[in-house]
């Protein structure tokens, strides 16, 4: 009864916080509602075929499957590439490095998290595509793989620094307790520190994945932008939802079926992310039990 903290217990400051929270809620919901409303016409016209269709040709048909596949593959690849690397880095920085070195590495990461997406895009065009092409002996370097790799590099500093924060914020009491039982540093890190920082790490990873999912310019410049269901071939060009939006949205602005279709793409991304975060949440829940 008393334990539930209801609105009646809010003091003035609490109301301010609630109002600020409302701003956030309204902007996020507003964006979502806008997307839903704008995508109604195309969804009404195409129904599920919008998501299952593999042909996107303005004026004829709008099938989002190539973009959905592309987005999932690129993001999945980026996550796969970045996770082990970022987590090892975070673990090493938090558990093994001495404070001055830790500060230095963190500093570099924080600086690099600040490299703008457009710069990654330019670097990707200038170096990564050629590098991938030569290294893998491909016909061309503008592939889903390149995009995934670029995204992995891009989100690495952010994931690393945030997961490191999560690891580091575990009270050292626990580390001491574990080490006094004779656990090695690594065992302590894996059995005590890591489990306790799982929520923080999942948060960091979700933030990174989200960033990767939504990245427009950098992906657009290296992914090849070909609307084609890529199958399971990562080494071919493809298209992601944001890059599709980046290429066409400004042209189609405002109204018309093309615009609706693009907004439906945005809405689709919303859904995908919702599913992802929901599973992430479940993961935390299961893990905390």
């Amino acid at each position, binding site marked *: 009864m008393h334990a539930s903290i209801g609105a009646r217990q809010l003091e003035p400051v609490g109301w301010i916080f609630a109002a600020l929270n409302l701003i956030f809620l309204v902007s996020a919901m507003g964006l979502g509602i806008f997307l839903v409303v704008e995508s109604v016409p195309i969804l009404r016209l195409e129904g599920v075929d919008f998501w299952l269709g593999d042909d996107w040709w303005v004026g004829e048909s709008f099938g989002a499957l190539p973009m959905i596949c592309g987005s999932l593959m690129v993001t999945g690849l980026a996550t796969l590439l970045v996770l082990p690397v970022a987590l090892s880095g975070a673990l090493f920085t938090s558990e093994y490095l001495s*404070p001055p070195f830790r500060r230095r590495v963190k500093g570099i990461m924080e600086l690099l998290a600040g490299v703008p997406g457009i710069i990654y895009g330019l670097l990707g065009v200038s170096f990564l595509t050629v590098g991938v092409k030569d290294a893998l002996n491909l016909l061309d370097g503008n592939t889903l793989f390149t995009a995934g790799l670029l995204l992995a590099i891009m989100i690495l500093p952010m994931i690393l620094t945030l997961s490191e924060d999560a690891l580091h914020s575990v009270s*050292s*009491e*626990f*580390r*001491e*307790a*574990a*080490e*006094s*039982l*004779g*656990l*090695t540093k690594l065992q302590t890190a894996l*059995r*005590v520190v890591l*489990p*306790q920082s799982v929520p923080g790490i999942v948060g960091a990873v979700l933030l990174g994945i989200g960033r990767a999912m939504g990245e427009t310019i950098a992906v657009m410049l290296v992914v090849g932008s070909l609307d084609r269901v890529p199958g399971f071939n990562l080494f071919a060009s493809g298209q992601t939802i944001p890059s599709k939006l980046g290429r066409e949205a400004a042209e189609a602005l405002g109204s018309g079926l093309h615009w609706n279709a693009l907004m439906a793409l945005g809405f689709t991304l919303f859904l995908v992310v919702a599913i992802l975060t929901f599973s992430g949440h479940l993961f935390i829940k299961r893990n905390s039990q």
Partner: protein
Amino acid sequence: MIQFKNFVAAFGGRKVIRALTFNLPANSITAIIGASGSGKTTLLRALCRMNDRVKNFRVEGNVLIDGMDIYRPDTDVYALRRNVGLVFQKPCVFPKSIFDNAVFGVKEKMHRKEYPDLVEKVLREVFLWEEVKDRLGEKATTLSQGQQQRLTLARTLAVGPQVLLMDEPTSSLDPKSTAAIEKLVQSLKSRHTILWVTHQHDQAHSIADKVLIIENGQIAPFETPVARPEQSSSFTRVLQNVQEYPE
């Protein structure tokens, strides 16, 4: 057998332990008493190198356990700590189930099937089994302070160290549990070397083979035959020294 040779422990410039030279025989119980802030905890932590993490902590002199200097650079600290179990003054249980806490330090070598038996054994030893046997899966953080204190003791016992360092292990226990723990420790004497920090002088004298008093970072040893403190005139003297209540 633990030997201190001219041992000094300091935080930065402040020497907490100064020039300690001293032997603790194997299979004995030694009690340490001393004012709050006199360096008892520091001494215990130094014995299993828990202060390695503390930045400005440094030691001088030697500490030998079974003839091996534990501060030699090539010491395997993990093996050392498995051999020298420390029960903290401020119990710190992991935010896991009671069961998991009890077996936390057990080496992977042991088979998981043996865990339940081990848990029951150690929890019984620390007199906690009856209280928690129905809620082994609950989080250990929901236990009361005294229960947590016994759980951390059980956790250490499960590792099976040779040397047991206990930092006021009965400070938050009721007399019944305290007596049980005291009895347990006395029964452990045959297998372990035990160092016991306490503030209760009668407790120290009733269980220990030897009582040390830390003062100004140095030790004034009192060999106490297993005798009730009331019967020992030397102890009365000690008490008078220490218990100089401010009136």
